[in-house]
């Protein structure tokens, strides 16, 4: 396990702006993410939080500004095995895809392996280890489409963990998952953050969860409205400004 330096910048977002055509989605956003952070990115729907995540990952190009990861500009970034990615489950996943849990977790190693590399015993041990970590070993031969939403998310976490990443990006990971499963899921993330010192960037519209789980909050609504500790965010006047009264009620309800 590597030593964590909480002052070391892993990701630097500098003056990033982004537009879809004429519509500006993000405006002049600067954000540093340190080693070991558990950053929750929140904000109203259409506020640009998923767009920011995609820019950080190099899936979208910012119209202005730069992103660097581990000191390297994202356009030339090569060390992708340091990055793990857990996609939004409900929206973009073909449940009839013919692949077993084991096959999907194995995919997480393919980027690292390059063109001609094949799996060795160490890789197979690693696959077993991450399946154990997310408690999915008994399901390893099952088809991904036959699992519940929460189980599928665990498989995607395992796929992200198998390449030994230092940073994990999660895009709305618990959409369409029941409350109990959700609790287990966030307990697992917490364990990975505290015990294994993984850095997390979590995009979620579920404000109450983010405030409870993350160690830092970045609130995006076209601009960076707030960045800091969750408790100060709750104290401030940000909620009603951003969401109106409705969501404030839900948060207090929790």
């Amino acid at each position, binding site marked *: 396990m590597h030593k964590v330096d909480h002052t070391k910048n892993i990701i630097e977002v500098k003056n990033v702006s982004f537009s879809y055509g004429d519509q500006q989605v993000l405006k002049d956003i600067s954000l540093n993410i340190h080693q070991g952070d558990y950053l929750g990115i929140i904000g109203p729907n259409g506020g640009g939080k998923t767009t920011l995540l995609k820019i950080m990952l190099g*899936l979208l190009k910012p119209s202005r500004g730069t992103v660097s990861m581990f000191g390297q500009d994202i356009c030339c970034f090569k060390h992708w095995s340091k990055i793990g990615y857990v996609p939004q489950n409900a929206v973009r996943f073909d449940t009839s895809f013919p*692949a077993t849990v084991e096959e999907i977790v194995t995919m997480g190693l393919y980027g690292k392996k390059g063109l001609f590399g094949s799996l060795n015993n160490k890789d197979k041990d690693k696959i077993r280890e991450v399946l154990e970590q997310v408690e999915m070993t008994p399901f390893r031969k099952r088809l991904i489409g036959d699992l519940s939403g929460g189980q599928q998310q665990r498989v995607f976490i395992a796929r992200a963990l198998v390449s030994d990443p230092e940073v994990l990006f999660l895009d709305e990971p618990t959409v369409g998952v029941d409350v109990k499963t959700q609790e287990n899921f966030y307990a697992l993330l917490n364990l990975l953050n505290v015990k294994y010192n993984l850095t997390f960037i979590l995009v979620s519209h579920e404000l109450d969860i983010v405030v409870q789980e993350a160690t830092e909050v970045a609130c995006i609504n076209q601009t960076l409205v707030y960045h800091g500790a969750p408790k100060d965010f709750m104290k401030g006047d940000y909620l009603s400004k951003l969401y109106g009264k409705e969501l404030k009620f839900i948060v207090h309800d929790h």
Partner: protein
Amino acid sequence: MLDIFNYSFIVRGLEAGIIIAIIAPLIGIFLVLRRYSLIADTLAHVSLAGVAIGLLFKINPVITAIIASVLSSFGIERLRLSKKVYGESALAIFLSGSLASAVVILGLAHGFNVDLFSYLFGSIVTVKQSEVYTIAIVGLFVIATVFIFYKQLIYVTFDEDAAKISGIPTRFVNTLLILLSSLTVALAIPVIGVLLTSALIVIPVVTALQFKKSFKRTIIIAEIISIFSVIAGIFLSYYFNLATGGTIVLINLVIFCLVYLFLGL
């Protein structure tokens, strides 16, 4: 019973047919799962234009079909990525455009004759030895490439964003898939014909998917169905004097219906 092997054209047909039967589902599984099934049909029509050019200039039509198919596969991909045209419309443009070109070029060449008919519907009688060699060499290339890039192909097919974030050059993999598809389609035409080629690429895979097995097993099941249907189709068409391409596709359909009904119960 085995007098069938005394006819060299049958042996040639079997050789070519089995190679096609092996590569068609290998490419088909990626196309079907990416919802690209229709691209096979479009590329088949493009290949017909290539065949027409080959007949006009008296060059091996398989080679001209391959060139036409590969060139337009890049054109289709570029048109699709430009986002100015819907992916489906890009396919429609190429399908009808190449069919039109084929008709005009064939008219220039020597009118509509038996040769054309055999390319439209496939005929093992007309598979020439030189075509068998081309099919064998290019077929081996397709098989080897799928084996080498299996990891990248399956990841990009399942989740393109995640594949990209893991460091896989997704654009290259997409281009490769479309290149392999165009090669496969062009090779299949002498045996099974322009109008039926996409059936051999799509139906065995769709049938295999009904079994709901792992990715590797799905490929194996599709291979078994495909090879069986091609061999059985060639034998049946020989003994009962049927059109080979049509027989092969019909056997595939019968297997699909049986599997669908049986597994649905």
